[in-house]
């Protein structure tokens, strides 16, 4: 479903991704772990071309994202084409990024028919908050609206960039519940998170990234309980 191959990305002289390759199968839930600054958010943002890559490529269902192959070169697509491609890729931000001047329903309806928008709000359990503005909602509710909005374009995959990191501890659960539901219903997901318990329970595969490289990947029991690499062990000993 998602294929990431040899992706390099630098910000100035700082090389954030140093050749990352990753395959995600349809219906698979991949959790990306790693210390802060390891490049995991950047990796996620290259998948929907919010960040351009310096080298390597990404495909979804076989379609190159952000580029077009012509002759022996990859040409960057026009912005209009990229925007079209992003309809296939849902993205949930750490800070929700709801549109503050629109109600919950209007936020979702910005990219869907009204009836569909209601349906997606129902799916995250917020149909009764349809007419509330983001500021009137708790952080957890805002993130659930943001998830409904990301689902509203009926994407093939949904990317979550630390979806619970900006939440008060008691609000984390309700967002993880929504993620759990999505995972069970067969949504293809890539989740960057620090919630190890959630990763163990929901992930089909855990990918550990450090210093711009995938250090280790495998089933949750394997990576979390029997990490092979020293750096994975060091990271887990800090967060577990």
């Amino acid at each position, binding site marked *: 479903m998602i294929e990431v191959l040899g992706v390099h990305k630098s910000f100035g002289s700082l090389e954030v991704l140093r050749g990352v390759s990753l395959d995600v199968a349809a219906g698979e839930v991949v959790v990306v772990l790693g210390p802060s600054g390891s490049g995991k958010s950047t990796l996620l943002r290259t998948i929907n071309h919010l960040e351009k890559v310096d080298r390597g490529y990404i495909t979804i269902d076989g379609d190159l994202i952000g580029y077009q192959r012509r002759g022996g070169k990859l040409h960057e697509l026009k912005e209009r084409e990229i*925007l*079209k491609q992003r309809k296939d890729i849902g*993205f949930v931000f750490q800070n929700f*990024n709801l549109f503050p*001047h629109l109600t919950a329903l209007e936020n979702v309806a910005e990219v869907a028919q009204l009836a569909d928008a209601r349906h997606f709000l129902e799916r995250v359990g917020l149909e009764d908050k349809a007419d509330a503005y983001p*500021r*009137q909602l708790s952080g957890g509710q805002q993130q659930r609206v943001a998830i409904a909005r*990301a689902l509203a*374009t009926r994407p093939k995959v949904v990317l979550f960039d630390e979806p619970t990191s900006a939440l008060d501890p008691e609000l984390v659960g309700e967002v993880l519940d929504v993620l759990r539901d999505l995972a069970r219903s067969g949504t293809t997901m890539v989740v960057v998170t620090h919630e190890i318990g959630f990763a163990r329970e929901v992930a089909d595969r855990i990918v550990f990234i450090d210093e711009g490289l995938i250090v280790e990947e495998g089933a949750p029991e394997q990576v979390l309980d029997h990490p092979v690499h020293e750096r994975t062990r060091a990271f887990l000993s800090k967060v577990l």
Partner: protein
Amino acid sequence: MTSGTLTRASTKDDDLSSLPVVPARHPWRWVGVAFVLVLAAQFVHGLVTNPAWDWPTFARYFTAQSILTAVGTTIFLTVFGTVLGFALGIVVAVLRMSKSPFLSAVGWTYIWAFRSIPLIVQLLFWFNISYLYQRLSLGIPFGPEFVSFETISLISPMGAAVLGLALHQAAYAAEIVRSGVISVDRGQLEAAAALGIPRFRQLRRIVLPQAMRSILPNAANEVISLFKGTSVVSVMAIGELFYQVQVIYGRNARVVALLMVATVWYIILTTLLSIGQHYVERYFARGDRR
């Protein structure tokens, strides 16, 4: 603070929880109020009793036909200056924020040029444009002409005034629009981009409504200052409010009374604009109320 025994709830006999709470008093505020009230009373007293204000003349001219017509002209100039100025200003702001260095330079140059030239100088240029260019024509640059016009018949004094005000206003409007757009959180654009919302729709539905919150107070300032700034076009002998009162006091020498006529009209219309500003701002603040 200073005495722990007073600020700390007592642990023993007296239960503070039943005592009434007295808010802090501010006696100096009342002194200030009294001072300002006395000044205001003196000012009003002077307005009423000093014959030099010449209120009968004021009353005779305040709603005179010539003054009402001039007020209409002032409103006309303000409306057209604002609408055309902000329409062009949005275009210039978009140019200035363009990722293309060329378009960005074009926007920057426009703003630079029209902020550098005093409005009154620019207006006089437009007024005298027919001395500079007698004919204007449409055609292929440096090639044949298809149609051509006498400049003097194409650009009337009124047209020159509207043109000058709008071009001047556009430079300021562009910067106000730009300041509003850059005040919108980057995450909003990222979210819109991630959702695949087309570029123009991002601007119209997501960015501008949020930018309006910081654009409006500045824009209202500009409209009000343009409204009074229209008095500058009196140099072109256009019969707006200020020109008209000058004409009248040139005849009857009642300078103060006629300046008051203009002043009171300016105050009334500015008040109306301020009230309008309040409601428009309230509309764009939706979502900000809990």
